[in-house]
Each structure stands twice: as structure tokens, then as C-alpha cells.
């Protein structure tokens, strides 16, 4: 009896340590998306000023795996990840689309892309942020991998890093392409 009571704190400690250990690498600010394995929402966005094609759901349902990257010129991490989005566009072998999220001025996105380079096959301009909300966007940048039928297969929140690109996004795309 006395022995079993003495063991309780030890068991509690080990259990708690286990819970903490499992969560130590978890970023609590990352919210799991409910849209994984669900069809991408219906949307149709106008093009950037001076361009012809905007972006709509039809672009995501052509039978090809595609990537949708949510970016904004006011978003500093977007600038940081931009070279990697270019790499993704070169090495992924799939179209990368841009969702230009909530610019204060419609021209800002165009200027930003002119300065840093434009890796996107097409860009839609979401001035109101409503399409962003439909995609469950809560912090730019966000990057979605979408299969050929328009189903969202993966979402990365926050800037894409070399590790994320090489260890998660590119393998995931290769796997979906089959």
C-alpha cells in the first residue's frame, strides 16, 4: 500500500515529462487547418493592375498538382521566403499560384514582384481578404499544396525555409504527382 502510494508522484512525473517531450518542438501558434483533404473554396480574384489573368478555382482543378502561396508586400517573412518560392517554382515541376493578400494599395503587389522577381504562374488580388478567410488564412505567408481535383492536401503556415522546402513541400508534391 505504502509502496504504491510512493510510486504515484514518479508515475505523474514520467507522464508529464512524456507529454512535454512530445510537444517540445510544437509551435503553439500553428493552428491545424480544417481544410486538409477538403476541396478548395470557390473563388475568383481579379488580376494585379496591368495584367490580364486573375486567379480562380478553375486554375486549381486542371488535373495538375499545384501550389498556392499567400503573400503580401507588407509582410516581412514573405520577403524572406521569396527566394525559396522561386526555387519551389523551378524545382517542384508544378504551377505555383500567388494570392496577393490585403494590399493597402493595389500597385504594391506588382512593385514587390518587379523588385524581387515573379515566380507565379498567375496571381489573384485579394484586397478584401475574403478569399483568404475562405482558405482559413490567419497569418501570411501561407502555402497550400493542392491536388489536381482541387483538394487541399497540405498547408504550411509561416515562411517556407530550406528545411520545409526540401523535407516537406517538395517530397509532398512528388508524392502527389505519383
Amino acid at each position, binding site marked *: 500500500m505504502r509502496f504504491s502510494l510512493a510510486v504515484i508522484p514518479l508515475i505523474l512525473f514520467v507522464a508529464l515529462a512524456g507529454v512535454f517531450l512530445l510537444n517540445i518542438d510544437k509551435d503553439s*501558434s500553428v*493552428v491545424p*487547418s*480544417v*481544410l486538409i483533404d477538403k476541396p478548395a473554396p470557390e473563388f475568383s480574384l481579379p488580376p494585379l493592375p496591368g495584367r490580364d489573368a486573375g486567379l480562380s478555382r478553375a486554375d486549381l482543378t486542371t488535373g495538375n498538382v499545384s501550389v498556392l502561396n499567400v503573400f503580401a508586400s507588407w509582410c516581412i517573412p514573405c520577403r524572406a521566403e521569396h527566394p525559396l518560392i522561386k526555387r519551389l517554382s523551378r524545382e517542384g515541376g508544378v504551377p505555383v499560384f500567388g494570392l496577393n493578400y490585403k494590399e493597402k494599395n493595389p500597385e504594391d503587389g506588382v512593385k514587390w514582384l518587379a523588385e524581387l522577381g515573379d515566380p507565379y504562374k498567375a496571381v489573384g488580388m485579394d484586397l*478584401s*481578404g475574403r478569399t483568404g*478567410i475562405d482558405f*482559413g488564412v*490567419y497569418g501570411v505567408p501561407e502555402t497550400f499544396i493542392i491536388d489536381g481535383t482541387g483538394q487541399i492536401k497540405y498547408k504550411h503556415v509561416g515562411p517556407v525555409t530550406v528545411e520545409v522546402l526540401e523535407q516537406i513541400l517538395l517530397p509532398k508534391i512528388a508524392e502527389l504527382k505519383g
Partner: protein
Amino acid sequence: MTRRFTVLFSTLAILIPVLVSNPALAVNPDEMLSNPVLEERAREISKELRCLVCQNQSIDDSDAELARDLRVLVRERLVAGDDNEEVIDYIVARYGDYVLLNPPLKPETYILWASPVVLVVLALLAVFAFYRRKSRDGSPASESLSADEQARLDELLGTSENDGKN
């Protein structure tokens, strides 16, 4: 006397501004609906929804851009004729249960909801066991030694006395 007055005065000096001032509102006047009933419902719903940027504030409290967009969206849905539950479902469909400041009761959250009750019951059991043992230890039955115990005690005491003499 003067000291008591100082204490009273400083207490009031702290309390009065706290009680008199209104809490700062994150909701801007231009977001508000002209229909006070709908606006009241919008406020109610907004208090239930988590701001995903700041995470521990409701969208009603938050100044974040996304919180503002969601407040406007909530009001739009209300004006379109949604009831409160439909508005909340609309947001949950996009952001998941995580946006609810009160997690819903469903199989994934049974442990979450049950754990406070389980802990209280366990604590009560522990307290009960503690006092029962204490009262049993203090009971008259254990105060007097059994014949075996007395014999053993005598033997030990005898040994130690002998040790002492040697």
C-alpha cells in the same frame, strides 16, 4: 488618523478610475450595425470567437486586422439572415473548432471536459483516504500492543540495555 486617511485616499484614487472608465473597445463605430438587436447578437458571437493572430483574445477584444475582418464578416452574415449558430458554423468551417473559445463537447474533447471532474473526485478520494487512515492509526485498538509486539519490544529494549552495559 492621518495615516488611515492616506490609505483610504490612495485606495479611492486607484479604484475610482478603474470603476468609472469604460473598457477600450476594439470594435470601431464604423463596423457597428445600425440595428441594435443585430449588433448585440454580433457582439455576443464575437466574444465566442478566438482571434487567430493573438490567440488568447476574442475577436471582440482584438485590434488585429484579421479580427476586424471577421467581425465585419459576422455582421454581414447576420444581416444576410443567418442565426447565431449558422454564423459560428460558417467561421468554424474555415478555421476549425480552434476558433471557439469554448471547446465543443465531442469525442475528441471528452478528456478535456472530464478531467476537472476526474481530478476533483480523485482529490476527494485522497483526502478521504488520508483522514480515514489517520483516524484508524489513532484508534484505541492500536494504542495497546499485542502480546507478540510486547515480547518483541521487551527483547529489543533488553538487548539495547545489554549493549549499553558492555
